[in-house]
């Protein structure tokens, strides 16, 4: 065959969850139907990763009560969609308590608690009198019409004994440990603390390997393979048992050379190469002797051999002997002569009757001899003579009867075993003995001899048969068991072959995806590192996984070199650089399609980074924020500045501590507010040229509106289970204003400008007047520009419109 082309890889987006990729690849693969059915079955049998089992999760709000530094209930609401949110606050304001509470809500514990020993853990419960700790997280689940809620409470003082409950919209509440994302928490833990970053770089090489290996998300396929492998081993072991037993069984059968069934069995078992003859085996097992089973047939025949019954033969012979005697006594007597004379007279009377009137004797010719008187006399004489002759007739008849009776006892069976053929032949010769007296004389002796011989032979044959069965019976059982197993193995042979093919295909798929995903992971890590390293001379040349997953020597290879010299640079990296590298390795995890978590919580990533790296980090987070909800807790204001100065959209909250342990989370800014803030600054600028007012200000306001539409569009898209990629593609478009507005207002992009404007007039506080303002914003990008009399008022009105459209009314569940 020249057909060695690799399996066609269809244009499946590798950003799909692994289970969906597997199904799509399978559908496109060329393989026999049985193999593909086998694989489909196995795919269905393994629990699909959470990304497929549940829509992606985004955090909508967090409420924390009586947890660590937080006393009274502290609540804040996030935009449940991709984007970056910074939660900033001084040390001790309660940021870390919030971050930890969110992590604990999901996992029941948190990495700080896990790391520290009892003495340093401190009180996890707020010190307020009567504190009842509680964390409530509202989650937006892609495709669900309403929010889900995750709640964690503590029945007693033990931190590690808590009660988590997850209630998905429209579903009954389940314990958090049974929530569909639980397995994914291990692989794609969406919580990242400063300490985690430090750990990754200083961790054991095998743990680093596992951390990266998990990100590749091939666990599902490996599990499918494990399932197939288990079945394959089972079938292979069964086939091996059949082979081994075949050898043993053959040896045992050969030990019974006299047993024809054993010989027949050996033939039926066939060779390992040719396989057994199941039909022959079935026949043997049904106890039917095969055609060539001579010895056994003879034994059976002998065993069934019954000779004549000597008593009956003696009786018949006696009777015959008596009849012979009677017959002999009447032979040559007047009785016989009388019969002859009666016959003669009968014939003469007959002659007279045929020749009426002719009275001459036909014998002597004497005329008138046959007179009427003679006829009458003769007739009377015939009757007398006949009476006289009956005795002779009777004797002769009885002789015939007795002879027949004896001969009737000479029964010859159809098959005669050679061992008895002489005796039977002697008996059979009785049929040809003409002389009844001779027959009567010899028959009893021959019959007795035959009967005795038969009885002896039958007894002996029966004993032999029994002896043979003694040895045969256990072999029969073994043969029956083996036949059943061999039949199962023969039946499973095509499945075994399919399993080999299926696993070969799966192995190739895993290798292919692994290589692709590792390459993509490496590229992402390098890209992130490039942003973060800024002017550091250290480059990340390679990220490799060395060794198999099961190897103890497996390790993550980070090829980092200083100033492009091939020198191991890990040792000379500053702590800030090490953290940046850890981020470069960690952040791709948040982006993988297999994670059900749409959010990533990062606690204080900025520590020990120099200003240039903070700028790079803002870029990295922003890029990640285009696909995921990134929530960053930080005490460092530089990160917020880095977002602002690079014109990157960001939502900012500030955590403040009031008196005691009352913590407040105050919204500071968000992408809509950022654009409005810029617009306000421009509106207030003195001596601004008219052209900037007519063209730039509307543009900034339009940006604020678009950001408000994007917010609403995400909410709509999520409620309807629409595709993220589609929305992202729409957001990236230049002419996005009307489609975005349509999506934000109606939940679909198909509505025209007049529809959009009519709906805007409905939802905006200023009605059609507000629609005019929206038109002005759009006019800014045209040569004529917008005519804005009062810039500050214009921006104010626009902020009202943005507020009205950014959160679509809740749908009734």
């Amino acid at each position, binding site marked *: 065959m020249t057909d060695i082309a690799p399996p066609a890889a269809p244009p499946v987006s590798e950003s799909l969850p692994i289970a969906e990729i597997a199904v799509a690849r399978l559908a496109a693969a060329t393989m026999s139907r049985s193999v593909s059915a086998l694989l489909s079955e196995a795919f269905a049998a393994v629990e699909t990763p959470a990304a497929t089992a549940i829509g992606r999760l985004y955090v909508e709000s967090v409420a924390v009560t009586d947890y660590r530094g937080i006393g009274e209930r502290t609540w804040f609401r996030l935009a449940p969609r991709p984007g970056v949110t910074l939660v900033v606050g001084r040390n001790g304001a309660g940021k870390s308590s919030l971050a930890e509470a969110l992590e604990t809500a999901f996992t029941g514990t948190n990495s700080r608690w896990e790391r520290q020993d009892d003495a340093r853990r401190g009180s996890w419960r707020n010190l307020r009198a009567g504190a009842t700790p509680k964390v409530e997280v509202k989650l937006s689940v892609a495709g669900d019409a309403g929010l889900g809620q995750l709640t964690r409470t503590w029945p007693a003082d033990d931190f590690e004994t808590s009660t988590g409950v997850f209630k998905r919209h429209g579903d009954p509440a389940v314990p958090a440990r049974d929530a569909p994302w639980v397995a994914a928490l291990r692989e794609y833990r969406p919580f990242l603390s400063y300490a985690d970053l430090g750990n990754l770089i200083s961790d054991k090489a095998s743990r680093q390997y596992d951390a990266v290996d998990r990100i590749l998300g091939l666990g599902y396929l490996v599990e499918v393979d494990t399932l197939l492998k288990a079945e394959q081993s089972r079938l292979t072991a069964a086939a091996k048992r059949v082979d081994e037993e075949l050898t043993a069984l053959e040896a045992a059968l050969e030990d019974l050379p006299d047993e024809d069934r054993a010989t027949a069995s050996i033939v039926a078992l066939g060779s390992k190469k040719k396989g057994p003859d199941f039909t022959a085996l079935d026949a043997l097992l049904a106890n039917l002797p095969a055609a060539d089973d001579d010895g056994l047939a003879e034994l059976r025949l002998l065993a069934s051999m019954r000779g004549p019954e000597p008593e009956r033969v003696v009786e018949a012979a006696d009777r015959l002997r008596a009849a012979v005697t009677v017959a002999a006594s009447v032979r040559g007597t007047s009785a016989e002569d009388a019969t002859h004379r009666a016959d003669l007279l009968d014939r003469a009377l007959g002659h007279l009757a045929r020749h009426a009137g002719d009275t001459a004797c036909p014998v002597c010719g004497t005329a008138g001899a046959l007179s009427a008187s003679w006829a009458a006399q003769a007739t009377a004489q015939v009757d007398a003579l006949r009476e006289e002759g009956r005795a002779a007739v009777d004797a002769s008849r009885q002789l015939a009867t007795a002879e027949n009776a004896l001969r009737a006892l000479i029964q010859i069976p159809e098959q005669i075993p050679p061992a008895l053929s002489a005796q039977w032949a002697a008996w059979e010769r009785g049929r040809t003995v003409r002389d009844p007296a001779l027959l009567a004389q010899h028959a009893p002796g021959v019959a007795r001899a035959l009967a005795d011989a038969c009885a002896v032979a039958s007894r002996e044959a029966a004993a032999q048969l029994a002896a043979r069965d003694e040895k045969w019976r256990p072999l029969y059982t073994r043969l029956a068991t083996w036949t059943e197993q061999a039949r199962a193995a023969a039946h499973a042979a095509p499945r075994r072959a399919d399993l080999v093919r299926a696993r070969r295909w799966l192995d190739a798929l895993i290798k292919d995806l692994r290589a692709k995903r590792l390459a993509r992971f490496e590229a992402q890590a390098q890209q992130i590192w490039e942003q973060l390293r800024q002017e550091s001379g250290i480059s990340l040349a390679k990220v490799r996984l060395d060794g198999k997953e099961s190897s103890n020597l497996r390790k993550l290879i980070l090829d980092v070199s200083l100033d492009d010299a091939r020198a191991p640079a890990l040792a000379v990296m500053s702590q800030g650089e090490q953290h940046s590298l850890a981020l470069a390795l960690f952040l791709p995890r948040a982006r993988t399609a297999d994670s059900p978590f749409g959010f990533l919580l990062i606690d204080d990533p900025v520590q020990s980074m*120099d200003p240039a790296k903070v700028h790079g980090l803002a870029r990295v987070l922003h890029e990640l924020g285009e696909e995921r909800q990134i929530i960053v807790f930080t005490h460092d204001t530089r990160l917020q*500045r880095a977002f602002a*100065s690079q014109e990157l959209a960001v939502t900012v909250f500030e955590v403040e501590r009031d008196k005691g342990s009352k913590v407040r989370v105050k919204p500071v800014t968000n992408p809509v507010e950022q654009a409005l803030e810029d617009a306000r600054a421009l509106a207030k*600028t003195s*001596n601004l*040229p008219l052209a*900037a007012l007519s063209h730039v200000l509307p543009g900034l306001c339009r940006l604020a509106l678009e950001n408000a539409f994007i917010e609403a569009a995400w909410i709509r898209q999520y409620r309807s289970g629409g595709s993220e990629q589609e929305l992202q593609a729409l957001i990236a478009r230049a002419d996005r204003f009307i489609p975005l507005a349509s999506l934000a207002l109606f939940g679909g992009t198909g509505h025209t400008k007049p529809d959009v404007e009519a709906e805007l007039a409905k939802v905006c506080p200023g009605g059609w007047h507000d629609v005019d303002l929206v038109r002005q914003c759009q006019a800014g990008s045209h040569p004529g520009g917008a005519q804005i009399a009062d810039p500050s008022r214009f921006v104010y009105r626009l902020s009202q419109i943005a507020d009205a459209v950014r959160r679509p009314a809740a749908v009734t569940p």
Partner: protein
Amino acid sequence: MTPVPGPVTIGELLRTADLLLAGGVEASAASRHRGASLALRTTLEIAVNRAVEAQVTGLAQVSVRARMLCLRFYTDPETARRANAIWSQVCLACHYHRYEIGPTHAQVVAWRREVAALISLLADS
């Protein structure tokens, strides 16, 4: 008293930055790096002013923030974003912010490179 300086050119400012970066001035490294950052900031502002003034007369006279906001509508948005980002970085480097140590040599060299690239991008727009 030093004489009142005349209008300074972009070329002069870049050369000053280079001189400071090359260590040709008797001063601490931190001071030289801050001095170079200052020169770069001014260079960038001149380039931005020229670009916006070429589009709308009078725009060079408004506040720096307003100018920067307008820039994205008068030049390629990516160029505007880069200008804004580098401007905010060199501004930070110019100040003795209480949390931050001065910029490193490598950083200022990179900024010098980015500013030079932006000057030509802004001149083309």
